[in-house]
């Protein structure tokens, strides 16, 4: 506003050829124009920025950081849930293993009891049979010894009589008995 004296406008700062006289920056005739339009531009820019642009960009940035924070929180939560689920799964697996081991042990014990009973029965049977067998063998052995003795005495008598000897039965029996003992 300071310096617009319109009478000397053209010519004071520009020569006849249209070139600048001195520095155009220092030409006082033009300063009012520059200042006026600068003020207009600054006011327009300020209004554009403060009314529209800055609140909008600020809101977008805030919304974005909010969204990011929420997403991170949600991700944390989901991760926590996954960890919990994994722990629960591991726990279930461990329980199942323990239960299975218990069932196996129980079954083993039952089987062992049955087995022991059967084994005992079988042992008893086997020993009874063995005793019977032993008895039979003993009887047979005794029977055989008697028979052999009788056969030997008879044979000896027959041999003696056949050889023309005469011997009484007592002597022969005693001799045979002595031999058989030897």
């Amino acid at each position, binding site marked *: 506003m300071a310096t617009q004296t319109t009478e000397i406008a053209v010519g004071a700062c520009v020569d006849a050829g249209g070139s600048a006289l001195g520095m155009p*920056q220092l030409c006082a005739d033009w300063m*009012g124009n520059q200042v006026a339009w600068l003020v207009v531009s600054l006011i327009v820019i300020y209004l554009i*920025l403060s009314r529209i*642009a*800055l609140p909008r960009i600020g*809101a977008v940035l805030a919304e974005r950081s909010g969204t990011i924070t929420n997403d991170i929180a949600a991700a944390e939560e989901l991760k926590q849930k996954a960890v919990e689920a994994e722990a629960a799964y591991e726990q279930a697996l461990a329980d199942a293993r323990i239960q299975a081991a218990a069932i196996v042990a129980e079954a083993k014990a039952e089987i062992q009891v049955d087995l022991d009973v059967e084994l005992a029965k079988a042992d008893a049977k086997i020993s009874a049979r063995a005793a019977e067998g032993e008895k039979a063998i003993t009887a047979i052995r005794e029977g055989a010894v008697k028979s052999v003795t009788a056969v030997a005495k008879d044979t000896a008598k027959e041999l003696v009589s056949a050889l023309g000897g005469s011997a009484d039965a007592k002597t022969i029996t005693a001799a045979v008995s002595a031999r058989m003992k030897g």
Partner: protein
Amino acid sequence: MATETDAHSEGGLVFHPLDQFIVKPLFGDGPVSWYTPTNITLWMGLAVLAIFLVFVVGSRGRAIIPTRMQSIGELIYGFIYKMVEDVTGKDGVKYFPYIMTLFVFILFANYLALLPMSYSATSMIAVTAVLGFGVFICVTILGFVLHGTKFLGLFWMKDAPAILRPVIAIIEVISYFVRPVSHSIRLAGNIMAGHAVIKVFAGFAAKTLVSPVAIMGIVAIYGLEVLVAGIQAYVFTILTCVYLKDALHPAH
């Protein structure tokens, strides 16, 4: 015809590196009064339009997963928001829209000025002076409103030796009042110098003999200017934050 003799004689080269900064009315040839639509109006308007496209049209989807344009807007938003928060503290955040306005205006004006045939609004000292003194005046008033006369404690070093305190106070006051000048001249000077140097190289490019070198020079300076455009917007903004911090927390 540009012959070799022309190239050697200095008279053949006519540079007007500052003509690009001439303010012209958009319609007709009349005098430039304060309300005349000029090339400044056009390029500031384009900056406003670009800001509108990036920040309003780009973010119209309000997408959680941003589009490219929305990402750019969010990136600039986050960058400046963090800067304000880091430099001025939590209580400076309510001034964020003002600082954002300054930053995007300077950034977009600087980058639009790098288009060929464009006009560099931020190279005009009157423009940057309004920005720099505007910041200075606002921050000073804010300091007095928030802290009253305690704001003057900014100039009075309590931890300095008593004898030195008046001397330091004088230096501090001078440096405080130099702030808006350096703040505005830094921006205008950087942008103007870069654009003028590009124009000088472009003038040499018209001469066949040196044109390869001149064009290489234009490319190199242009690359530098791309950096300067961003860095100056950043520097202006972070210094604004620092001055604001002084107003909010004047105790050292």
